């Protein structure tokens, strides 16, 4: 039930918002490029899943959310955390495993959490976050709060039973969930056509009686517009909505992936359509971004990243004696 996505090419945002969007995407891009470096330097360990190439999705969707809304994401969630407003320094410290991290260092790259911004993680079980989002939305609905829960997941998750159960539950109970399927065409090395009999994911989603449409996930303006439209409908009581965000991962699945399953040429072709370069050129063409504007943004981002690294470097290791904490909630806290 592809309703035809809103065509953004007619409109451009005002100068300030345009730069905000570009800046957010650049924050994610440069943060992650630094992470890749730090991984090689063994400052960051474990699995590291980069979002590079997909920045428009998180940034676009977050524009539609207010502080009262909630976000659930996957193990590929640095971009979401940053776009949601989790401090970059706290995210970087988490990547290091320092106790100044947003999850106190316990979670690492795959488990960023920040209760203050209602950022509910950071889930490393594919599909595992969807039921949580349904439940968060259920609470909102039962408590009469007009809030939206945005739930991000990859197209690989669509094959999981939990996707199906969660979509049905959300639609059946008319819950305020914004399902954001990041279709980057591969689940690790498995191409969508090897994983779904029906590769039109919006059509699939619509079979739950849920409004669903496909959006160009490389176009941050299109994503923002679609997300706003969906979030508005949800807030108005329209129940859950589903967005398929067509995008592409420029990097390997994780740092261990030799990428045997795709051609370099395919990756290069997608890079041409990259969300940052595309927006940058459009803004430049429209006279909304001067060279010094871009330089200023880049400088600010570079500074923020450097500060985040410094913060993480200066961070401290949780003492070994605390290993047993956070298995049960400590008394007196709630």
């Amino acid at each position, binding site marked *: 039930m592809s309703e035809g996505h809103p065509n953004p090419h007619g409109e451009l945002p005002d100068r300030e918002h345009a730069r905000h969007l570009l800046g957010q995407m650049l924050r994610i891009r440069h943060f992650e490029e630094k992470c890749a470096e730090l991984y090689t330097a063994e400052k960051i360990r474990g699995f590291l899943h980069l979002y590079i190439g997909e920045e428009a999705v998180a940034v676009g969707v977050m524009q539609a959310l207010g502080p009262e809304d909630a976000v659930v994401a996957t193990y590929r969630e640095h971009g979401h955390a940053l776009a949601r407003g989790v401090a970059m320094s706290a995210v970087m410290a988490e990547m290091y495993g320092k106790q100044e991290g947003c*999850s106190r260092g*316990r979670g690492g790259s795959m488990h960023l*959490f920040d209760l203050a911004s209602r950022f509910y993680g950071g889930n490393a079980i594919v599909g595992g976050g969807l*039921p949580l989002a349904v*439940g968060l939305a*259920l609470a909102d609905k039962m408590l009469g709060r007009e809030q939206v829960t945005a739930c991000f997941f990859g197209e690989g998750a669509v094959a999981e039973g*939990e996707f199906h159960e969660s979509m049905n539950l959300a639609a*059946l109970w008319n819950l305020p969930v914004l399902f954001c399927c990041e279709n980057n065409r591969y689940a690790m090395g498995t191409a969508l056509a090897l994983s779904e009999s029906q590769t039109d994911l919006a059509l699939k989603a619509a079979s739950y009686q849920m409004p669903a449409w496909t959006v160009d996930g490389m176009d941050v303006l299109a994503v923002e517009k679609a997300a706003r439209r969906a979030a508005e409908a949800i807030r108005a009581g329209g129940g859950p909505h589903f967005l398929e965000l067509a995008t592409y991962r420029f990097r390997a699945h994780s740092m261990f992936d030799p990428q045997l399953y795709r051609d370099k040429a395919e990756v290069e072709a997608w890079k041409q359509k990259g969300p940052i370069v595309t927006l940058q050129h459009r803004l430049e063409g429209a006279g909304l971004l001067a060279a010094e504007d871009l330089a200023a943004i880049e400088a600010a981002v570079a500074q923020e990243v450097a500060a985040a690294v410094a913060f993480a470097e200066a961070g401290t290791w949780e003492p070994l004696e605390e290993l047993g904490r956070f298995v*049960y909630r400590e008394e007196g*806290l709630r």
Partner: protein
Amino acid sequence: MSTYRDAVREALREALTANPRVFLMGEDVGHYGGCYAVSRGLLEEFGPERIRDTPLSESAFVGAGIGAALGGMRPIVEVMTVNFSLLALDQILNNAATLLHMSGGQLNVPLVIRMATGAGRQLAAQHSHSLEGFYAHIPGLRVVAPATLEDARGMLGTALTKPDPVVIFEHVMLYNLEGELPAGAGAVDLDRAAVRRAGRDLTLVTYGGCLPKVLEAATRLAEGGVEAEVIDLRTLRPLDTATVLDSVRRTRRALVVDEGWRSVGLAAEVAARIQEGAFYQLDAPVARLTSAEVPIPYPRHLEQAALPQVPGIVDAARALLSGGG
């Protein structure tokens, strides 16, 4: 007279009345009245928002319970039976039990999950599991097994005061258990095992559906002059090792009776702890009486043979007394 079933229902009713954020959700808890009739009447009393029938989607509705708990509600999720809970185990282990830790202490999950457990109704291999041991293995969960009307009545309320997920196992053979429930029956703790019968000759450790059998066995043993102390674990995680050790140090012998399968089951843990904590007071190895390690068969004679029974408990207790020094 009321029943264990009534006690659970009263506990649910009280919780729903006391706190508007409490709700019950699960398969057939509403219109059907509950698979074991526990929630019958509650739909009429509290309405379909708070007595919420779910589709057959164990993973999603348990996960939704976790999410709703994060969102400020106080959900009670009923998984019809433990047999179906495997479909939700990923949510329980990887989210409910783990979120607090992964988030560095930010996200606790105040969720209560109730499930029926156990065999004895000739429901055959897929509907007769006792998997309490699986859940008791998982850090981050509290696991309880009320075996009396008082505990069925009182544990739910206490569970709802906990900031962490609590799994409550209700043995199917206990629902019809009858007894007097004091009018003022209230909260009971989730921390301590209970000595259900005092004795000096040996300690019988059990929980849940086996408690009535073990008490019956103790009575028979007493007729033969053997005084068994009976400990009802009540809480399976964390285990109240102190109460168990305290008893075994006096009686010097222990038999653990558990309806779960033997290998890597709850009884193994209890036995391991007893020998760790009271080795030098033991006169004989800790013995285990568990279900046979077979899927539970349908016919009554085979089903009964597969489960711990009173005569077997008596025999095992006697064997324990005659062994050792």
